[in-house]
């Protein structure tokens, strides 16, 4: 297999230029993982194509040689969706980073996949528009990666996910054909291939141009911070806000441990001694937001807030958001290692699930800090452990899995926004039946019958696609480097 990839290198240099093909072992190593650093695998070859035509040629060469390939954007994914293959080619999209077109009247932009999420909003800002999906990594994450993962963000509660904001894609199919899916406007003529492609975690092809919706910047934005003694009280405020018919742009919550970490990292100066902090952001026409703000404020008060702060200018809002946005990185201050979990529960089950997580945490003797998108029930428990202590990594992993079991028991999901990737494929059978998974893979078979496009991700067991077997008969659901013990997992 490695020989097959080696033989591809000269062809890749012809396609992308010698400077854009990496074979040096040390350089290859810089691509060994994405944001999920616990899984590492050095790719056989890295290519950095500079155009859609080059991507298509690279994929055609891989397809002809029967070599698997994995696309990578900025490498910020948290489920190992861009984990390379030791027997494959890693296609890095970061050279394709231009904003090709902005049509302010149509509120559409056409961008290349390597463009960072935030730079789309920056390019749109002069026209009074922005790109709504805002994953926490938006400064560095790529729009192509957002398409693969169907990324959300704190504001997706109101504004929706990537799939609601992409109206057309130019893609390279796993056979290396360059084509458009979607009619460019978001209207479906025939099957919604666009909807199927977005969120398929790079397994159905590689996006080379992306048509995105732009949204008028809200007239008014108000951010409110409310402190509570417990997450249960904060949770009650969340339920009451929803019951009042208010749909905030974002509702976020942090528990005492995550507040402690954020305080240590960025001195966010949240109310001292708070057991939970709730952040509610309202956006929209001034005439509506003022009334909503009054409603939310009184609900927060009635739920037992010990302190309420409000901000209506960008600088003050940034102060409130600073603690929340730093939370993941901040736990590094209070723990040598941690696992970021990404379960989802129905919003009304938040209180019960948090209590279960607390019980699991104390019986395992492992701390869990909770940061979550409370509005849509998306939990990010941060499981804190010390990898130098024998047995702790395994115990943390077990606790992390038990948290997902709790989410599923409440009718939730194993992932709200980070994706399944290589990290969670083993949990898929807990959420879906064999028939469900088999049916999903019919889509895979239609797009990628040879199973060369990011194989080993999402599904625990690949489906054989009828009469078109893969060139290698030994592909398995587990990433082969993991199966062979060649990928480091720690």
């Amino acid at each position, binding site marked *: 297999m490695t020989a097959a990839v080696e033989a591809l290198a000269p062809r890749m240099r012809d396609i992308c230029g010698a400077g854009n093909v990496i074979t040096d072992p040390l350089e290859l190593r810089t691509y060994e993982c994405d944001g999920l650093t616990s899984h590492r695998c050095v790719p056989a070859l890295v290519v950095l194509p500079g155009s859609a035509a080059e991507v298509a040629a690279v994929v055609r060469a891989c397809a002809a040689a029967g070599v698997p390939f994995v696309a990578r954007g900025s490498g910020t994914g948290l489920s190992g969706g861009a984990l390379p293959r030791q027997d494959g080619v890693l296609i890095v999209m970061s050279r394709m980073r231009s904003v090709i077109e902005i049509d302010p009247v149509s509120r559409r932009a056409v961008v290349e996949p390597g463009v960072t999420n935030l730079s789309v909003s920056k390019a749109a800002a002069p026209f009074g528009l922005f790109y709504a999906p805002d994953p926490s990594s938006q400064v560095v994450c790529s729009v192509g990666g957002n398409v693969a993962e169907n990324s959300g963000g704190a504001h997706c509660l109101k504004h929706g996910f990537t799939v609601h904001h992409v109206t057309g894609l130019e893609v390279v199919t796993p056979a290396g054909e360059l084509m458009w899916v979607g009619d460019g406007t978001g209207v479906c003529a025939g099957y919604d291939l666009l909807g199927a492609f977005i969120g398929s975690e790079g397994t159905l092809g590689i996006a080379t141009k992306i048509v995105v919706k732009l949204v008028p910047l809200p007239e008014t934005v108000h951010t409110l911070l409310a402190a509570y003694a417990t997450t249960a009280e904060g949770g009650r405020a969340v339920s009451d806000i929803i019951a009042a018919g208010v749909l905030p742009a974002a509702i976020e919550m942090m528990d005492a441990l995550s507040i402690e970490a954020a305080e240590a990292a960025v001195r966010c100066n949240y109310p001292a001694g708070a057991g939970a902090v709730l952040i509610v952001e309202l956006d929209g026409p001034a005439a509506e937001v003022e009334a909503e703000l009054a409603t939310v404020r009184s609900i927060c008060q009635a739920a037992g807030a010990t302190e309420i702060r409000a901000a209506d200018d960008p600088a003050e809002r940034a102060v409130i958001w600073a603690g929340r946005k730093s939370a993941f990185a901040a736990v590094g201050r209070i723990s040598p290692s941690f696992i970021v979990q990404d379960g989802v529960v129905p919003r009304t089950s938040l209180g019960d699930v948090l209590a279960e997580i607390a019980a699991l945490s104390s019986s395992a003797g492992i701390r869990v800090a909770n940061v979550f998108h409370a509005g849509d029930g998306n939990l990010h428990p941060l499981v804190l452990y010390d990898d130098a202590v024998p047995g702790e990594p395994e115990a943390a992993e077990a606790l992390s899995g038990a948290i997902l079991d709790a989410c599923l028991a409440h009718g939730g999901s194993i992932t709200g926004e980070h994706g399944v990737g290589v990290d969670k494929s083993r949990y898929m059978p807990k959420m879906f039946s064999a028939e469900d998974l088999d*049916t999903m893979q019919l889509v895979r078979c239609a797009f990628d019958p040879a199973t060369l496009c990011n194989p080993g991700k999402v599904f625990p067991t690949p489906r054989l696609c009828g009469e078109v077997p893969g060139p290698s008969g030994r592909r398995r659901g587990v990433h082969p480097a993991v199966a062979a013990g060649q990928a480091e997992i720690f």
Partner: protein
Amino acid sequence: MSAERTVAPAVRDALAAACPSLSDAGPSDAVCGVAPSFVGSPASTGEASALLRAAAAAGLSVVPRGAGTGMAWGLPPDSCDLVVDMRRMDTVIEHAAGDLVARVQAGARMEQVAAALAEAGQQLALDAPADATVGGVIATGTAGPRRFRYGTPRDLLIGITVVRADGVVAHSGGKVVKNVAGYDLGKLLAGSQGTLGLITEATFRLHPLPPAVSWVTGEFAAAEPAAAAVAAASGSALVPSAVELDWPAGGPLRVGVLLEGTPSGVAERARRVSELLGSAGGSAVAAGESPPARWGRLPSSGTVVRVSFWVSRLAEVLAAVSACGDAAGVRPAVTGSAGAGVLYACADPAAGHDAAALFVAGLRERLVPGPGSPPRGSVTVLAGGVLAAGAVDPLGPVPGLALMRAVKDQFDPGGRMFPGRLFPGGG
């Protein structure tokens, strides 16, 4: 259209064993003129699965049916042995008001779902016919004016249960709004017109019912100022829920903007939208609490052509409809969600098939770019005798047709689910 088929008695017995309500089809069960042999009305997903398994064993073609409101829209089936009538599966299974989520059976009618949700002050924010079923609305991808704000069924669907052509039951998504586990089969099923499988259950994201609504309308004598008004309203930060255009044949153009929110907020926003329409050159600008005439309505006869476009091309689209309508002599009426880049151009029902086909060909030539160019819209024929007459390809040159056929072949290798509905020549 295929000749009448004879189905062996043993097949009837097998179908009836799977679905006890099985009956012989009557004249009213014909699908676009194609008469089925049987109608099965499953009471559960399990029964639907058994019925489709039996149909698969006998190699029967299957047409799913809800209330039948959209059956005449689309190509006629190449064959139709069994109609699966979903109206017995009409339960609102779960309304989790605190989660803004509802799980419903596919045969539930939209008005029935709306009534159940309204008890908690919530709604499924789709403008679809009140008597249509949920499954039918998903399968046809039906959405009205408020698609501008809330999208179409695919955007509100968060979980789906489907019975495949081979009878296998599959789910995707779930009952939480935020969920990226696995492929989203709901996206593929939405708008698939029954050609990929039988939808039996759906879970939706809900929205609160607004305390107040207002429709602001203005009339325009020409296409350019109307297009400017649509651009101004849809690009404003006043967050309209709908930005519609209505242009009856020979009449003035009417722009209508729907606002939803609190009473005071809506009043203030309506005042500002009125200013926008006025400064774009609108006359008779008015705000009211009930929808203007023909709001969200499509004609019930004649050829209906859906044109999608980037909003900056609206004036060009209107000019194309006008010119192609004149050339073909079809006196088109235009209505739809102009702010969302969707219009329906409806040919005069009195116009013949050849004239309608000429109209469609003209629109495609002027508005749909050639292969290889970035797509900027599509021209799709949704309804009309012109489809049954085989005088026009409903989809035209849309990207990804080969992949769509590959998806169809995977889900329905025998080509038995509503064969011929979506793609001429099968599919």
